[in-house]
């Protein structure tokens, strides 16, 4: 379980997060939703320690991440998998080497075992025959999926995904959503997903934190997200004609 207590984050004078409080539960898919520029990525980076919040704490099972000694921090991070919004694949390595990288660093598997694991992970994100290609030779969506495969290669205990299905076609987006749910439930891990994909919101969001301009506005789940009376949330959810029509039929 990851708890976020009163986090504030500034960039210079500009405040991006305002006293955010929320909880991400174990064994569940936890969503952070909000409009572009609302602070989702910044919050996620505060969770994994890439940004240090000016005030507030992030607790991993009760222990404050930013106060951990370096050794424990590294150990905790070895249990994290992260999929960046921009994929962040290592461009000097092939896809196979990319996915194998965490295995090289943190396991003592034989090359054979590692290959098998890599192929299994690539299979799960529906990527075939790309092992020997370099990231630059893949489409944006394929890079996203390769990054996802890298994120899950080590069976993380904490999985962080920054818009894992943006830029994917609806069908592949569904595949990733299903994968996120499967992994979370099978391995009983804590998964945090940034998204503004409404389909994900209503299908996989077991907890949902809605952020508006750096403020946590609403917390709930997929069952009550469509029927809340929070105006800002409704503005966000029912912004498009498609969802407006759904609302009329609710």
């Amino acid at each position: 379980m990851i708890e976020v207590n009163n986090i504030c984050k500034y960039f210079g004078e500009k405040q991006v997060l305002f006293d955010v409080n929320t909880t991400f539960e174990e064994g569940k898919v936890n969503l952070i939703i909000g409009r572009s520029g609302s602070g989702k990525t910044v919050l996620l980076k505060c969770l994994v320690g890439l940004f240090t919040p000016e005030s507030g704490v992030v607790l991993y099972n009760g222990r404050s991440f930013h106060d951990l000694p370096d050794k424990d921090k590294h150990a905790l991070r070895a249990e994290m998998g992260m999929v960046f919004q921009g994929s962040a694949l290592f461009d000097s390595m092939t896809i196979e080497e990319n996915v194998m990288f965490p295995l090289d660093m943190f396991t003592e598997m034989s090359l054979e075992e590692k290959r098998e694991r890599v192929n299994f992970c690539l299979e799960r994100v529906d990527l075939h025959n790309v092992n020997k290609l370099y990231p630059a030779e893949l489409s944006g969506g394929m890079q996203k999926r390769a990054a996802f495969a890298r994120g899950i290669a080590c069976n993380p205990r904490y999985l962080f995904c920054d818009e894992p299905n943006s830029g994917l076609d609806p069908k592949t987006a569904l595949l990733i959503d299903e994968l996120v749910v499967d992994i979370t439930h099978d391995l009983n891990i804590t998964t945090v997903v940034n998204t503004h994909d409404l389909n994900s919101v209503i299908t996989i969001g077991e907890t949902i934190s809605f952020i508006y301009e750096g403020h946590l506005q609403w917390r709930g789940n997929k069952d009550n997200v469509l029927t809340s009376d929070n105006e800002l949330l409704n503005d966000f959810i029912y912004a498009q004609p498609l969802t407006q029509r759904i609302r009329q039929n609710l």
Partner: protein
Amino acid sequence: MLKNTLSIIGEYILFLKKVFSKPDKSKIFFKKLLFEMESMGIGSMLIVSIVSIAMGSVITTQTAMQIESSWIPSWTVGFVSRTSIVMELCPTIISLLLVGNLGSRITAEIGSMRVTEQIDALEVMGINPASYLVLPKVLAAMVVNPILIIFSIFFALVGGYLTVLITGCITPYHFMDGLTYCFRPYDIFYAVTKTFVFAFVMSSVAAFYGYRIDGGALELGKANTQGIVVSSFIILILNVLITQIML
């Protein structure tokens, strides 16, 4: 300005502390080290040898021109050329050349990894990116550059010899005589020591400027220029200091 400079120096020292921490996996570290040594060494060999031959040729011609007096024995040309080549031209000029060649490559590589969040990805995995990415480069440069300088000295002397042979300004025999006159191995040691220190400055400063980029591709160009200017400046200052200490 002063405050700014001091804070950058502090940042640089903290960066070095991160770079020189124990690599996470020694097998992978040695693999990377060998790879860097190979790519740096082979990548710079051609340019270093061409520049060295040209440099040796020019310095020999200039020296010969200025010592056209019957009072001074003609082996002086070889002696003076050798001394300048071994002690100053090769270690310093070639190190500066390598700042432009290897240094800017290091800044670009590390910097583009920063811009595309690859360094963040390493960090999240629990890997120390400074040590993982930079340490092999710094150590490789400290091994490869002195070797390159030895080759460079050899090529510069060859360049001088060929010039003498072709232009006939003095007899090759006298030139060779001067080259070997009063040879002190300590001069080579001095040259290698200088290069070793310069290699450290070049690679660590270049990596530092790439590593601390905050922003996009525009920053990358700026970081590259800064890295080259700052490391050249430090190298030239250290050149004075080391010379005062060692000679």
